[in-house]
């Protein structure tokens, strides 16, 4: 794990620059320090620390600056304290508030205090711009985080809905099968049963001709039942062949040539697994077209009683390709994990994506 980069923020630089300004002012005041200068110096520090401790409006700093300006009118050398207030107002983007201080500095200031004022204005305004940009970027990051969070929640809801829909689909399918069996087969089989019973009764009464006729009717009913059973099975039969056709079409229409092999019976798969398999293969192939330039792509599907194993391998691995899951792969993995499957990547000479989808919960 890489060491985190030290986080330097505008407020850190603000305090460093204030320290520099206070030290510069002290260097001017020190050799001839008097009690009055010390009090003014402490007053300036007090003003700054008060605003660090409590969120006071920058406008209130005008009152503090007024005290220093009045003191400077009595002892002009005290204008050396004004660059600190100029810096404060520049950081808070209040250039109009610095006018009186600048006039005082122009009137009474020394060369050193002018240089200090220039430093205060430039550094203060740059700090303001930095802070403004930082706040903007922070807001953008917050908004993106919020968006991502909402998308994740939506995805979870969709997955839950998908699961519920699958359950409803299964129930509807069972109901449909039950209806077909009841409506078609039930009638014919009941009629056949009654005919067989009638034939039995006629045989006990030695009415062989009628019994034979009844038996023929029963045979006819059973033949009809067989025909209807075949029709119902055809109606109920899963679209395995169609799904395999969809995958084949997907592979054949892909921009790069794909060697496709499939072992096992697609019809064994539940509908939701077939759909998930198709969508995941589609996403995997889209990723290859986006991030790789392969010469060979192989796609192999193995369908057993317990799992479906899909392996997609390509040799067009880009050198700068990220190893971490991108958003496409991440969503694919979430969908696969939602049915207790797994998605893994093997990166060596080739890029191999392995999907395992369980068929039994």
């Amino acid at each position, binding site marked *: 794990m890489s060491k985190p980069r030290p986080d330097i923020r505008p407020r850190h630089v603000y305090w460093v620059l204030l320290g520099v300004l206070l030290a510069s002012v002290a260097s001017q005041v*020190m*050799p001839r*320090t008097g009690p009055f200068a010390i009090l003014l*110096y*402490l007053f300036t520090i007090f003003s700054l620390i*008060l605003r660090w401790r409590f969120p006071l409006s920058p406008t209130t700093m005008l009152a503090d600056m007024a005290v220093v300006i009045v003191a400077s009118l009595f002892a002009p050398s005290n204008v050396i304290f004004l660059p600190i207030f100029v810096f404060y107002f520049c950081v808070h983007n209040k250039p109009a508030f610095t006018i009186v201080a600048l006039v005082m500095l122009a009137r009474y200031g020394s060369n050193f205090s002018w240089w200090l004022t220039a430093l205060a204005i430039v550094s203060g305004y740059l700090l303001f711009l930095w802070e403004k940009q930082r706040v903007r970027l922070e807001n953008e990051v917050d908004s993106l985080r919020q968006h991502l969070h909402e998308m994740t929640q939506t995805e979870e809801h969709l997955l839950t809905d998908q699961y519920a829909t699958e359950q409803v689909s299964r129930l509807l399918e069972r109901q449909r099968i039950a209806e077909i069996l009841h409506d078609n087969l039930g009638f014919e089989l009941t009629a056949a049963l009654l005919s067989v019973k009638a034939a039995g009764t006629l045989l006990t009464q030695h009415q062989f001709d009628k019994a034979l006729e009844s038996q023929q009717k029963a045979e006819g009913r059973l033949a009809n039942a067989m025909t209807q059973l075949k029709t119902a099975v055809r109606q109920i039969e899963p679209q395995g062949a169609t799904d395999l056709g969809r995958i084949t079409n997907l592979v054949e229409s892909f921009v790069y040539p794909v060697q496709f092999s499939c072992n096992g019976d697609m019809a064994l798969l539940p509908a939701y697994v077939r759909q998930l398999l198709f969508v995941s293969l589609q996403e995997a192939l889209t990723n290859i077209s986006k991030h790789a330039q392969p010469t060979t792509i192989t796609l192999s599907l193995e369908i057993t009683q317990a799992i479906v194993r899909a392996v997609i391998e390509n040799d067009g691995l880009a050198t700068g390709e990220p190893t971490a899951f991108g958003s496409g792969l991440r969503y694919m993995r979430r969908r696969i994990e939602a049915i207790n499957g797994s998605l893994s990547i093997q990166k060596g000479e080739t890029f191999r994506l392995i999907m395992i989808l369980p068929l039994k919960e």
Partner: protein
Amino acid sequence: MNLYLFAIREDIRQPLNILLILLIPFSLLFIPANADGFPMGISLYGLVLVYSTFLLTRPVVEDRMKGIVVRIAASPLGTFRYLSNHLLAYLTLITVQIVLFLIGSLVIYGDAVFDRLLIFALYFSFSIMCIAFSLAWNSLFRTFNLSFGVFSGVASIMCLASGISIPLFLLPRSLIGYIMFLPTYWLPHGLLAIYEGDSAGMLVAHAVLLFYAVIFLLVGSKRRL
């Protein structure tokens, strides 16, 4: 028992604090007087005040170390009430020490040597500054031992350079402009002003000490969990 009395009891429980409050200050009274100012013990007592206040504020650091401050933050008791009660308790103990010290000086030096009320007021302002300074200093450290280790060095140098450990008149005049930035300078400055009857000097010493106290309080009172 309210928080104020609890803080006093917590401090008095430490045998070292009793020693500091009652015995050590009196030993200073036996240092001989000098010709150009108050007896040396009066000035050196500033050193005792610096260390006494630092040791008395120990419970505040320990509360932070032991995580008690976190529990206090979660309780209805506010930070302001917690700090103000503790600091007032320390100030009370220091005031008792100052009074005892001045009574001792009355016994040793007699009645007519100096105005003890003015000296009491100066010591009082100085001890407020020292308590605030200790609070701000301790807020920079996580453990009391490390804090005290660094403080003992820094405080000794400050007292030495600012005229507490050695008389102010022995320091070079050119140095005075620089050491005025040290908060400890203003005790010997105030004592000198009292000795010379300079009322303005006395007021300035009080003002600077209280200014420093407010700044240190602002820094030290920031809640650090």
